[in-house]
């Protein structure tokens, strides 16, 4: 493990020329890379239990949920998302698909689920069920290549719309996603920012979500990341599993194609 950690530190050191202060950030990151010490593993265990448990008004488990490779087939499913689903006639990411299964198979109401999606880190809350199940399903693609399909017209359209959305400036800050994420070597304060047009950068990012966020004390998923960015951009709340979030995630996942999932991640 030690050599792996050191190897990762060296890799990070090679990844980009470092400004003052970034070497210590890389050291910190290297320490976080020890997966055996990643508290996200506990949340994945919780998600596994919830996935197999009979729950909801229909008293059903999620074992028949189809994430794209067939009912109950979880191995590698996340690595091939987002994708077009015939039954919903939509492109869906992992989390919007999970919402479909929890409503259709288990009978939960969508409004009820959406009323409490995210753990509130200010109250030191534990991860919600939806967050835990997402982390568990995603973890079944650990070590696999990021390989979302791009065959169906709707999949192509989602990625294209996602990129246009990425550049849309709005809100009182005049921000778009591109304001922070389209150039190399940029930082907000000391926080490095990913350039989504640099394959290595975006692969390193997308391959490590879901991620345990040390500053939140919980596992966070891509839908939360999309909400968080928009909240910081001072927009209204972007809706969980909405077409815009799925389009953005489609674009980002395609930019990261060829990367290898390394889950769960651990970040600031």
């Amino acid at each position, binding site marked *: 493990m030690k050599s792996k950690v050191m190897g990762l530190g060296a890799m990070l050191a090679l990844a980009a020329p470092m400004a003052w202060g970034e070497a210590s950030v890389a050291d910190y990151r290297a320490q976080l890379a020890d997966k055996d010490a990643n508290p996200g593993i506990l949340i994945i265990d919780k998600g596994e239990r919830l996935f197999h448990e009979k729950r909801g008004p229909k008293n059903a488990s999620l074992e028949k949920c189809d994430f794209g490779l067939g009912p109950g087939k979880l191995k590698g499913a996340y690595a091939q998302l987002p994708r077009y689903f015939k039954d919903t006639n939509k492109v869906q990411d992992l989390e919007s698909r999970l919402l479909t299964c929890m409503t259709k198979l288990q009978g939960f109401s969508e409004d009820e689920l959406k009323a409490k999606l995210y753990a509130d880190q200010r109250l030191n809350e534990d991860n919600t069920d939806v967050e835990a199940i997402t982390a568990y399903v995603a973890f079944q693609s650990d070590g696999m290549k990021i390989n979302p399909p791009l065959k169906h017209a709707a999949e192509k359209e989602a990625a294209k719309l996602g990129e246009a959305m990425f550049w849309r400036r709005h809100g009182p800050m005049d921000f778009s996603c591109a304001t922070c994420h389209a150039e190399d070597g940029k930082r907000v*304060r000391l926080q490095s920012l990913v350039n989504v047009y640099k394959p290595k950068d975006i692969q390193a990012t997308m391959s490590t979500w879901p991620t345990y966020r040390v500053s939140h004390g919980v596992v966070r998923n891509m839908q939360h990341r999309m909400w968080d960015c928009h909240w910081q951009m001072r927009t209204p709340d972007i809706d969980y599993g909405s077409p815009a979030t799925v389009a953005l995630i489609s674009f980002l996942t395609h930019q990261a194609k060829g990367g290898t999932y390394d889950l769960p991640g651990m970040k600031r």
Partner: protein
Amino acid sequence: MKTKLMTACLLAALAPFAQADDKLATKVDKLVAESFKSGPGQDMARLEQDETQKICSVTRNNPTPAQAQAINAREQATIKYPDGNKLMGDWKNGEKLVKAGFGMRIGNIEPDPTAKQKGGNGGNCYACHALDPKEVAAGNLGPSLTGYGALRGSSDEIVKYTYDKLYNTQATVACSNMPRMGHNGILTPAQIADITAYLISAESPLNKK
């Protein structure tokens, strides 16, 4: 004649792209309309784009020279000045304002306290700029402003340029990444004058060696 013909050819070649961009922008507007929650605690007006935001989005911050000129002129016309037209305010207050700046976040998940949801909280300048050399946790999305006044002096032209830049950055740089701090109500004219003084004043720590 020859150049005219070439221009015509060039325009003809570009026209389909412009149309495609407009179509795409319309689709993205629809996407946005379907994807954000309305209701109490939300402010859907924040998602409506003004003309400048539209052009910067569609061109991905690369407006044509003609578009850039139109943006500069339109944004220059928005600039308001503080009472008494005093563009150099109190640099000490400016120093507080460049550090402060949390707020304006809305919604139902993690909104700021109501009083902070409007602007006027500060500029949060260190997120993107280096200013006082003693503050090491400075971002680099924007250029370093350390020694701003020491380098440029404090002539009336520099003072006005600085105030205008802070109030509405797109009056000079179309599609700049920087928020239009005054125009969008993030800072008041008096606060912008204070930050102008912080950038220019010889006493400001930002200008000390």
